[in-house]
C-alpha cells in the first residue's frame, strides 16, 4: 500500500492526475451527501461495499468547432469521441486508487445497467454533492465556470477523502437570462428547446420553478440511441408482409439505428445539445476549448 501522510495530500495528487488528463472540473463528495440526494436503489454503496467517497470529474465533450457545425449531428459525433476520454480517465484513476493508494475503487455507471430506462447512478446528484454545480432552469447541472457543458464521471472509493461542500449559490440564472425574463418572459434555454421539454419561471435571482419533462426530451436527447432502435424494431416485428419487412429493414430509418449503435458503442450517443449551447453561464470559458 502506498504510504500517505494524509488524505488531503492524496486528494491533491488525484486532482493533479485528473487535471493532467484534461479534466476541467474535479470534486469529492462524501457518500452520505450523495445518499441524501438519491433513492436507495441508486446509491454508491450498491456498487462498492464500504464506499466512503465519490470522486467526480468532468470534461466538455464536443469541440467548439463541432458545436458550430452546420449539421446538428456533428456535435454528437464529436461528443462520442469525447466520451472516450472520460471512460479512459475513469479506468486510469480507479486502478490508480487501488494499485498506488491501496483503496478499493470502482467507476459508477451513469447509464442504465438493469434494463431500466434510468441510469443506475445519478451523475447529476454526484456532481451536486461534490460542489461542482447546481440544477438550473433546464434541469442540467450548471457549473459556475463552464455552465451546463460539462459531462461528469464518478468513481466510488473506500478512501475517506476530504469532501467538498455543495455549492450554496446557484449559477442559474445568469444576469442575461434575468434580463430576458424581465423583458420577454423567457430565457435562452426555455426559448430554444425544440421539444418544449423544459418550462419554469424566475423570481429575481432565483429559479422559482422549473419542470423538466424527460418523456418530451427523449426523442431529441436520445435520437441516436437504443430507445430509437427498439422503436424501429417494433415496426419490423409488426409488419406481416415479407417484402415490406425487407424495405423497412434495409431502409435508411432502420439502418441509421444500427449504425448509430455501432458508432456509439456502449455509451449511447446523445444528439440534441441546444439547451447547453445557448446557456450564457461559462460561455466565455468554452469558446475555443
Amino acid at each position, binding site marked *: 500500500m502506498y504510504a500517505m501522510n494524509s488524505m488531503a495530500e492524496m486528494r491533491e495528487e488525484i486532482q493533479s492526475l485528473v487535471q493532467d488528463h484534461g479534466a476541467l472540473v474535479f470534486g469529492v463528495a462524501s457518500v452520505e451527501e450523495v445518499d441524501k*440526494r438519491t*433513492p*436507495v*436503489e441508486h446509491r454508491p454503496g*450498491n*456498487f462498492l461495499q464500504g464506499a466512503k467517497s465519490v470522486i467526480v470529474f468532468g470534461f466538455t465533450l464536443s469541440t467548439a468547432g463541432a458545436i*458550430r*457545425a*452546420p*449539421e*446538428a449531428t456533428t*456535435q454528437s459525433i464529436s461528443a462520442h469521441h469525447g466520451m472516450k476520454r472520460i471512460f479512459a480517465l475513469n479506468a486510469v484513476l480507479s486502478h490508480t486508487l487501488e494499485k498506488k493508494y491501496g483503496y478499493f475503487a470502482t467507476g459508477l455507471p451513469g447509464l442504465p*445497467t*438493469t*434494463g*431500466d*430506462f*434510468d441510469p*443506475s447512478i445519478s451523475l447529476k446528484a454526484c456532481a451536486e454533492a461534490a460542489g461542482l454545480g*447546481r*440544477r438550473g*432552469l433546464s*434541469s442540467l447541472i450548471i457549473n459556475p465556470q463552464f455552465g451546463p457543458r460539462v459531462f461528469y464521471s464518478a468513481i466510488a472509493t473506500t478512501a475517506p477523502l476530504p469532501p467538498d461542500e455543495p455549492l450554496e449559490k*446557484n449559477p442559474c440564472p445568469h444576469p442575461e437570462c434575468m434580463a430576458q425574463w424581465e423583458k420577454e418572459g423567457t430565457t435562452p434555454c426555455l426559448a*430554444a*428547446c*425544440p*421539444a418544449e421539454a423544459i418550462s*419554469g419561471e424566475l423570481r429575481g435571482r*432565483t*429559479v*422559482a*420553478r*422549473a*419542470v*423538466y*419533462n*424527460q*418523456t418530451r426530451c*427523449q*426523442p*431529441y436527447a436520445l*435520437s441516436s440511441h437504443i*430507445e*430509437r432502435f*427498439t*422503436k*424501429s424494431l*417494433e*415496426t419490423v416485428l409488426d409488419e406481416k408482409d415479407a417484402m415490406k419487412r425487407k424495405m423497412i429493414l434495409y431502409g435508411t*430509418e432502420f439502418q441509421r439505428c444500427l449504425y448509430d449503435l455501432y458508432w456509439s458503442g456502449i455509451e449511447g450517443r446523445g*444528439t*440534441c*445539445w*441546444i439547451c447547453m*449551447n*445557448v446557456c450564457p453561464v461559462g460561455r466565455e470559458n468554452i*469558446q*475555443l476549448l
Partner: protein
Amino acid sequence: MPVPGITKTGVIDVETYQRCKNIILANSTALQVLEDDQLVGGLNDEQLAAQLGLTLWEVREIRAIAKRDAVSLADWRKADERMQLNHELFVMGRGSRRRSPGNSENS
C-alpha cells in the same frame, strides 16, 4: 447488478400496466421539478409502490416500459427535423459575434 428489493423477473401483466402507466409516468422522476432552487419531484419507485399498492418490481417494470412507450416513431422523426432547425438558428445567431481561431474578422 441486483437492484435492492427487486428479485423478480418476467413480463408485467398487461392490465396492470394499462391501469397504472399514466399515474406512474406523471408522478415519477420522468418529471423533475425544482421549486425555489430545490428539487421537489418526483416520487421514487418505493414511494410509488406504496401509493399504488404494487410491488417494487411492478413499478419499475411499468415505469421503464411506459417511458419507452410514450414516444412514437413519428415523434423521433419529427425530433430530427426540429432539432436541426433549432441548431441552425443557434449557429446563425452566434455567427456574427463568434470568435474563430485564425479569423479575427469574426470577433
